[in-house]
């Protein structure tokens, strides 16, 4: 468990905790404050979510987190793209995992605008993410700035469509 706390402090330094407070009037007229986390690290129940730490971050935190994770013995297990078409956003989820006896899984989730999705690449720090990013670019069209070669990896070489977008028609 020590590994999870130390990783949490490590990430808390990088990602400042930001909370938006929204008041809603419930029946008795009291002001009820609901805090929705915009940015920050939160420990999550492993049995339910499958990860120990869940980090909501923004694009400028991606590279610092990747460097911090690389120094502390984490490796990138997967890079996932999600197309939230309803609130006009796209989400990139980085899954970090450890190889030694102290299991600790971290999911870093970044939301970017859906119109011109762009996010800095971490393939120079974790070469394993190179193919994952190319595949996410294939499926969603998310531009990974600084990626050495964003040509289609799973789609034909001349493919210009992004199939996993919610509004994709074959």
């Amino acid at each position: 468990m020590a590994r999870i706390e130390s990783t949490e402090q490590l990430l808390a330094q990088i990602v400042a905790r930001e909370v938006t407070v929204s008041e809603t009037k419930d029946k008795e007229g009291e002001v009820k404050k609901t805090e929705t986390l915009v940015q920050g690290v939160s420990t999550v129940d492993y049995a339910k979510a499958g990860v120990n730490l869940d980090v909501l971050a923004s694009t400028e935190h991606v590279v610092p987190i990747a460097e911090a994770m690389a120094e502390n013995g984490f490796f990138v297990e997967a890079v996932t793209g999600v197309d939230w078409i309803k609130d006009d956003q796209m989400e990139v989820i980085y899954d970090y995992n450890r190889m030694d006896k102290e299991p600790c899984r971290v999911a870093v989730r970044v939301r970017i605008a859906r119109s011109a999705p762009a996010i800095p690449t971490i393939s120079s720090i974790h070469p394993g993410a190179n193919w994952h990013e190319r595949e996410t670019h294939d499926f969603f069209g998310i531009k990974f700035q600084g990626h050495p070669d964003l040509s289609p990896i799973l789609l034909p070489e001349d493919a210009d469509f992004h199939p996993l977008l919610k509004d994709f028609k074959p």
Partner: protein
Amino acid sequence: MTVPIRYREDETFVLNLGPQHPATHGVLRVKLTMDGEYIVKAEPVLGYIHRMHEKMAESGSFGQFLPNTPRMDYLGALSYNHGYVMAVEQAAGIEVPERAEYIRVITVELNRLSSHLLWFGAFVLDLGGFTPLLYAFDDREKVLDLLEMVTGSRLTYCYFRFGGLYNDIEDDFVTGCREFIARLRSRMPTHYRDLVTGNIILQKRLKDIGIIDADMCARYGATGPVLRGAGVEYDVRKNHPYSAYPEFDFDIPYFPQCDSWARYLVRMEEMEQSMRIIEQALDKLPDGPVNAAKVPKIIKPDDGTYYTAVEAARGTFGIRMVCDGGKGPYRLKLRSPTFSNLSLFGEVAEGMLLADALAVMGSLDLVIPEIDR
């Protein structure tokens, strides 16, 4: 490692280790820039068998994606069944009875055995020996008979259901398993150890070839026997215990030599461990129902993102599932182990002889539809 050699563009030629090649075991293409027998640059090209599994997951319901999971890695299909079913059970909070967990472990380990047997045959075939393939296939057919008796199909099993199994196992499956393990144990020293592992030619072809050390595995995210061949004791069944694995005592074989020979020994040793697990599971098989009491007709996991990981025959198979209350997953990312294992091939094969590069590719144990998904 001598001083780097400067080469001129017109002294190298490009060779397509193309989609249709006996050594790629599927439709993987590697664009090799060659300087005589040496590989200057190796660049795998994927996508020749991209079958849109993730797109199908989004357009169907949870149950409709079940037949897709075995068609990704058809050699270790039950691990993929297991991963997907566990992901949905974890998200929807469905409990699985004890007996179902045991049968799941037994069938997954049997499937791992058949996958390693096929890898063994194909790997020695790549290195030039044909007979071990026939011995390995002979044993593998026994496993396929056992699994067919229970699941109904030979390769693409769709046996697990949310909250349990499709049907219970009978006694002749249990006795069949014991006979099979006894037979394989009796054949292991002669047909596998003396004939192949003791063969000096095979050892010379594999020792000190394709050095993949722990640091390279970490940089590329390689898992499974490739990582355990690099001396790292990492196995999802031990590091992140799931299903009924904590009840069995088995150890994780890992070898520090980091070369193709270490990866070969890891898989041979893993066959032993799988047999141990099956025997313990058969001895302690509890009675009771095979399916959960109440499984909702329409699976409605609450919103959010979930991650589940399973130790497939080739490495960590992870599922990142995003649910938004629809009839199916909103987004399903399938983290396939050989996708990451193959991404380090470009760095490993540089400066290697072509024949050795094929030996390394065989030791990575690739299944191409799992890479392309």
